[in-house]
Every structure is written in C-alpha cells, then in structure tokens.
C-alpha cells in the first residue's frame, strides 16, 4: 500500500483541456513536493508546498496543499503537448529523513 495515493494513474487529453491530479494520504506531511519526469530522465522538482491551505502557481500549473496537510492537487489549465510526462507527488513527514513518493500520474496531451 502506497503511503501517498495518486489519481488518476493515466490521463490522456486533448490540447487545451484542463485537468487535475490528486495526491492523498491518511498521514500528515510537513511538506509536499510535485515532480515531473520525462522518459529516460530523472524527476525534476516543480514546487514545494509547506503550509496547510497553501496555493502556488507556476504559469498554467496550480498546486494546492490541503488544510490538514494530508493531500495535495495539481491543476493544469489549457494543457499543452509539452506538459506530457509522469507527475509525481512526494512528501516529507518530518519524523525522519525519508522522502516518500506516490506511484505517479502519466499524462499524455494530444495535439
């Protein structure tokens, strides 16, 4: 069982559509990160959220941290083919040095 559950696992959409990816847990995290990974490469950090209720924007990407710091979401507006990739959420629980990952959401944006 994953400590961080991501949904959906796969998403295939048309260019210009909006989408939301979810990252949920029953545990509280001191911070959550979102990464994007392209095939054959390592994950690249997109954002870190720390405060419950926090919202961060990165161009067309909006990240939200739940009030209870147990969940997070990533919303992409007007998706582009360049957004295609694997999106991973990761959390640090603050009770040690481990960083745990969700299984990821594979996003494919078709032109």
């Amino acid at each position, binding site marked *: 069982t*994953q400590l961080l559950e991501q949904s959906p*696992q796969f998403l295939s959409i048309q260019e210009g559509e909006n989408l939301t990816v979810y990252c949920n847990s029953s545990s509280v995290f001191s*911070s959550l*990160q979102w*990464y994007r990974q392209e095939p*054959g*490469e*390592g*994950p*690249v*950090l997109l954002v*870190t959220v*720390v405060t419950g209720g926090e919202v961060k924007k990165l161009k067309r990407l909006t990240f939200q941290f739940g009030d209870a710091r147990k969940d997070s979401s990533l919303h992409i507006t007007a998706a582009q083919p360049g957004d295609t990739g694997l999106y*991973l959420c*990761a959390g*640090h629980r603050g009770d040690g*040095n*481990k*960083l*745990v*990952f*969700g*299984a*990821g959401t594979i996003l494919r944006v078709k032109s």
Partner: protein
Amino acid sequence: DVKVTQSSRYLVKRTGEKVFLECVQDMDHENMFWYRQDPGLGLRLIYFSYDVKMKEKGDIPEGYSVSREKKERFSLILESASTNQTSMYLCASRGRREAFFGQGTRLTVV
C-alpha cells in the same frame, strides 16, 4: 545549477555479477538516496544516507548494499545481480526539503 550525476545511463550485466552504481552531488547535501522505479510501483526507497559512513535501510533493501565514504558520493552495490533487479535506478540528494535527482541508470540483468 545543482547537479546530481550518475555514472552510467545504461548498463547490461549478467546474473550473479557484482554491480556498482555511482552517484555524485555537488550541493554539499547531507542526505542522499537510492530509489528504484518500476512501472505502476512508483519510486521505492532502497537505502539512504544522512551523513558520511551513515546509512539506513529503505523499504526494499534486500539484495543491495551502499557505501558513503565521502559526503558527495553515494554508491549502490548489487552483491549478486538477479533478473528481478532489472529496473531504473535513481539517485537523489536532498537539502532541507526538496530532492534533486540524477538522470537515472537503466540496468538490465540478463
């Protein structure tokens, strides 16, 4: 630019061979990690190190060992490679929160 460098992008090894995967970071981070990534399973933590010569088992340490003789270098060792260790291996270095990853090593054991 921060940098985490893994020694090989692709490796093909035979069953029973001893395999070394090397990782170097230039950020003076204390924490370093080895993950393996398999379809549908996400990133699973093999081992991590929070200081030189210090290591802790992750979630799937069986069949692996690690070495951290210098702060910037963290090595993953497969003592006797098996086909079920065919995977993508990712090294990461972490500061206070965020992790920075290497480009990954695609290991195939035949």
